[in-house]
């Protein structure tokens, strides 16, 4: 239990640090790495909730995302090395805008946090109820049972993505 807590805090702290790093770093490669670390940490935090399957999904998300980013960057820039140059040099006003955007985002986060923490129906000081059932079973039952529609819809979405991404990535046909 204690290990759970310690691990949770560890993941949380690492997660926050890597997120901040990802947000402020100007080197895309480092950002990508930080992103990977951060998502991994989220999946770690999820593990402390005993949501193993979700954690796996999130980890997969992080991994695939990182791979995706790296590969696309290399495709776009032609070589891996070039693609991880820093973003275009910031000008003064641009920096202000960045700062402003960041403040805005943090404000939004603060608002959400405030709403959550002050919610009367939520006793935030207690620890979450940890389900004893393995979540993959629950999820599987639901997705093939009462929430079949969701499952089907996810399938349709994948179709959309396949069609869409295929279309977007298709090279223009010169003959026409």
């Amino acid at each position, binding site marked *: 239990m204690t290990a759970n807590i310690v691990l949770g805090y560890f993941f949380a702290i690492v997660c926050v640090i890597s997120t901040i790093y990802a947000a402020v770093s100007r080197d895309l490669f480092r950002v990508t790495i930080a992103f990977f670390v951060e998502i991994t940490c989220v999946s770690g935090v999820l593990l402390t909730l005993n949501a193993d399957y979700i954690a796996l999904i999130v980890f997969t998300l992080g991994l695939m995302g990182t791979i995706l980013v790296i590969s696309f960057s290399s495709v776009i820039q032609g070589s891996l090395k070039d693609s991880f140059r820093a973003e275009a040099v910031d000008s003064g006003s641009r920096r202000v*805008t960045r700062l*402003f*955007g960041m403040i*805005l985002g943090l*404000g*939004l986060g603060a*608002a959400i946090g405030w709403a959550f923490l002050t919610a009367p129906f939520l006793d935030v000081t207690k620890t979450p109820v940890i389900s004893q059932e393995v979540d993959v079973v629950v999820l599987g039952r639901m997705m093939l049972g009462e929430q079949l529609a969701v499952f089907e819809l996810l399938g349709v979405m994948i179709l959309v993505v396949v069609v869409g991404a295929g279309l977007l990535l298709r090279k223009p046909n010169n003959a026409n």
Partner: protein
Amino acid sequence: MERLPLFISLGSLLIWALVALFMNKNLRMAARGIGLGLALVQLGSAIWAAARIFGDTPGVQYSVVWFALTAKDVFEIKFVVDAAGVVFWVALSLFTAVTAYFSLLGQIKGTRTQHRGEAVTVPLLTIGALCALTSANFISYYFGWALIASLGFLAISFSAPNRDDRASASFRYLILNILPEVLFLAGILGCYAVFETLSFNEINEKALADAPAWPIMCLVAGTMLRSLQIPLMQCARYLASAKSAATPVFFLGNAILSATLFAKLFPAICATEDIQYFAIIPALTAIAAAVMALPEQEPAQLVGWLVSYVCASVFLSGLVGSYDAAQALALTGSIGVFLLASALTEFSQEDRPQRWLAGVALLMMTGLPITGWGWARYLEYAGLIHNEGQLPSFHWILLGLKLLADLLMGIVLWGVVRERWMVRETTSKKVKWEIIVPLTILALSCLSIAVGGRPFGGLVGRATVDAFPGLVWFEKFLTPPGGAAKTLSSGMDLLGTDADFFARLLMVGVLVVPAMLAGLWIFRDRKSLEDFRAFCARVVRRLGQVPDQDSKLWSWVMRPLNATLGSAAAFFDSRILDRLMADIWVTPARFVRKVFLVFENKVLDQQLIDGLAEAVASIGKSLRLVQNGQVQFYFALGLILMGAVVIKFVVVGG
């Protein structure tokens, strides 16, 4: 049956107008012939009506319902054919017939071709005058009044439409009609508001009771203003430049109409408090007209001043309450001036007929006792003398002024008589019988009227009056409409009184002997004539006309002040009216127009309406700039706005 003459008259005039309208160039001669025929028919019907009226029937009144809006608001077109009206009607028909005759004559000889529009206006003008003459309420009276005003404008315009001076004369004529119309209409509306009727009879009845004076005053003032009286006297100049066309126009329009109104509303006018003081205006006008006429060389202009003078006489008598004098002056004066104007304008100077006609007319107008005009003058003086009960000394002042004016005008007229007949050489030998015969008939008829008239009758006594049955007509003609208790010198009552004696004395003492002698002496030959005219011109200029100080604002105030005679000079200053018009009407109108147009175009339309549109559009323009294409900016902006709203709702509440 009793309506028939009027209907025949109106119908024939209408047909005449239509014939004149639809005849094209080739048929113009026929149109003129038909016109003359119809004019004669009209004259016949007028005489028929007159015969009926003066025979046995009393005045005939009939009405057509115009609008019956509610049981209370009923508006009728009322006509009355009474003694006063019918006499003027005959005179009017006569004028029209003569005008038509001249028109045909001009067409035959090719000397004067009338424009189609001008030809149409003559019968229509007659209709207008007929309406006013036979009117029994304000609706039909105003019908005639306004018709004459606008048709006069057209007649002058069309007489030589391509000439600029004619166009401006017509415009000024219109102004002369329009400015008084404000007062006149206010008077009508006031009568309607005060007496709740438009009928002359009812107004006459109600005015005798205690009633506000201002509507009647407005009416009288409007009528006077329109008749070339003092503030607008200088309009006579513009009429002169309207020349031939003016002949029918201003006679039918002014003298007769004014006198008609006096005839119709005489009791009400007499019953109006203090209206007598208005009489100072015609008295001054008469003097001013005579003074202006002294140096005049242009015959048409002379006629213009004469019109002003005749109208002034009519008003003077009417306002002091001598109904019969006013009527007689109007009738004989209009006949005389009509003759004179026809003579002076329809023929060239070399024509023998012109000289004859003009001579006859001038003799009439000099006020010889045997002429109708002289007879009327007798009544005028008698009225002024007799009027002592009313106005303790005022009427003597009026009499003095009027005598001065008469003397001056007598000199002018005698001078012209002498000039026409004795000084000028003639080159044309041919006698124009076709002109002389009808005009001589006309002149003789006038003379017979005068001979049989009051002065003669007065001299030979009552018995003679009874011997002339025709005189009964004029008794009727000179009798004021019913209900006139305050008429002062009507009927035969004056015979043998002091007033009778003094009036006769004044006639001979002022009009005949001094004026004739002075006139004949002053104009003894061409040189003396020119000397005198030059002298008079100098005097007039010295008195009133200061050198031009053009284009200064308010010069109509400043100029008289610079002149020797002070403000009186205003009446002699030929430019004063232009100035006045410019300063009190044109310049302010231009200014107001400018202000309004600036307001309308710049302020309202461009600034306010278009400006509003532009302001809205510029908001749109600046809103467009928000759309800078940066999606992050969009989202951030959205978040801020949304956040602000939510915070507002959370913190402040709904």
